[in-house]
């Protein structure tokens, strides 16, 4: 009994350390990749100076960020201002508890894993709001308000898209949903839900073309205008880790998780397939960012409430009807 519990604790601690280390490394890599993708799309090279093809550039940037002074504006509400960057990172960590990297590579395979991720992801909006409001800056407040409005609008179609997958598998456990896709990935059975999920996930992570909460040309930097040093770094880290999480969830729900295409694994272990698909999706998200111009705020709202929401509801009804009568 005793040793069993000790091993449980060790499991949790080791899992936490791996998650923390992984999220940092992943963010370092993704920032580099983003700049490279942006560069090549714009016929530039991107960072080239530090390390081969600039691969060490973000490490240098990270060291710079850690060394910078943490400035709190005089008129800011310092309690919320300090706590917001920590709050924004917390739900991100929780999500890693249930992500299924491989058949047996999950920290906790909960029967409500999907629900857990979406329940906690709502907390990061409130953290963004707290940070943007506490900075006592017009641009920051505008960015925060936009972020809340956008999140409310896109959360609903996102959940409805997930619900239609949950209806098909009758489960909210990641391992069961992935196991159900060992032959055919759900993106082929639920193409509409998959598309809705990807669009809404892009909007939820405040990525272009939906990055109006931090639209540089109108709002400077949106909700993190006043943040400097590692506090800004935490917002940045949370954004890139969030991108990883939505891509991982999309992989698990729609792209077969740790399965290879059509049941062929080509001798590769599940985690390789999983990470490969996640990083392909991340590349697509970056590709979209550097291809499409930013939408206007009213376009964004209209698109969500008048197109995405009815479409996802219709998709859910059709899914339910097909499951009932076939």
């Amino acid at each position: 009994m005793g040793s069993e519990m000790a091993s449980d604790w060790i499991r949790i601690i080791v899992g936490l350390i791996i998650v923390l280390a992984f999220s940092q490394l992943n963010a370092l890599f993704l920032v580099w990749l983003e700049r490279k993708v942006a560069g090549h799309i714009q016929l530039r090279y991107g960072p080239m100076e530090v390390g081969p093809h600039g691969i060490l550039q973000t490490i240098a940037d990270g060291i710079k960020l850690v060394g910078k002074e943490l400035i709190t504006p005089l008129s800011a509400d310092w309690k919320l201002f300090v706590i917001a960057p920590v709050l924004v990172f917390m739900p991100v960590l929780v999500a890693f508890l249930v992500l299924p990297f491989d058949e047996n590579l999950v920290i906790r395979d909960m029967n409500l894993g999907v629900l857990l991720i979406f329940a906690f992801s709502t907390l990061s909006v409130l953290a963004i709001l707290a940070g943007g409001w506490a900075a006592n800056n017009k641009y920051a407040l505008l960015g925060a308000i936009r972020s809340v409005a956008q999140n409310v609008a896109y959360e609903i179609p996102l959940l409805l898209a997930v619900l239609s997958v949950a209806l098909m598998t009758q489960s909210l456990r990641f391992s069961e949903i992935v196991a159900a896709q060992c032959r055919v990935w759900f993106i082929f059975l639920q193409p509409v839900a998959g598309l809705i999920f990807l669009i809404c996930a892009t909007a939820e992570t405040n990525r272009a073309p939906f990055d109006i909460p931090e639209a540089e040309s109108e709002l400077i930097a949106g909700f993190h205008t006043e943040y400097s040093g590692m506090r800004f770094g935490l917002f940045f880290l949370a954004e890139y880790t969030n991108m990883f999480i939505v891509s991982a969830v999309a992989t698990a729900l729609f792209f077969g998780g740790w399965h290879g295409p059509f049941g062929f694994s080509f001798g590769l272990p599940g985690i390789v397939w999983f990470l490969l698909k996640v990083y392909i999706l991340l590349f697509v998200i970056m590709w979209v960012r550097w291809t499409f111009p930013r939408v206007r705020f009213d376009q964004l709202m209209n698109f969500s409430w008048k197109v995405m929401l009815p479409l996802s509801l219709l998709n859910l009804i059709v899914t339910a009807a097909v499951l009932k009568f076939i």
Partner: protein
Amino acid sequence: MNFMTEAMAQAAFWIVVGLTLAGAVIAVFPRNIVYNVLGLVLALTGVAGLYVFLGSMFIGLMQLLIYVGAICVAIVFAIMLSRPLHLEVPQRKLPKVLLAAMASCLFAIALIGVSLRTAWKPAAERGTDWSVATIGELLLTRYDLVFEVISLVLLVAILGAIVTAGFSRRLTS
């Protein structure tokens, strides 16, 4: 080892209770409405933690998703649509405070009365299956009417919000 787990569970329980109460205090007393909302978030998250302690992960997560994710964000919306935050907040009026105190006292008395009159049984003795599937089935069979009435209340709230927003917009334009 077992004793340690027990002690830690106890400590965690009281920490969650403390956070819930602290959140409730923040939700009521400061004159800054953003603090109030964030306090409410803390309190409701604490309640979700209490549900997890009672053994229902599902209810806890639903609490988080609905009350924190939907209701509190909606309240934030209402705040953003109301008077600008940087303006001086008006003084609390005594009659309003008294009425609010009376209403909450009545509610508290009713709650305490109900919980004292209920014959509580440990979860193990009740022995009913409270899985997600059961809850879902009960919601669509036995508690169908309650479920529908709750959604009707939400519909009325949405309509009311639209009417109020439209009214104030007509006033300003």
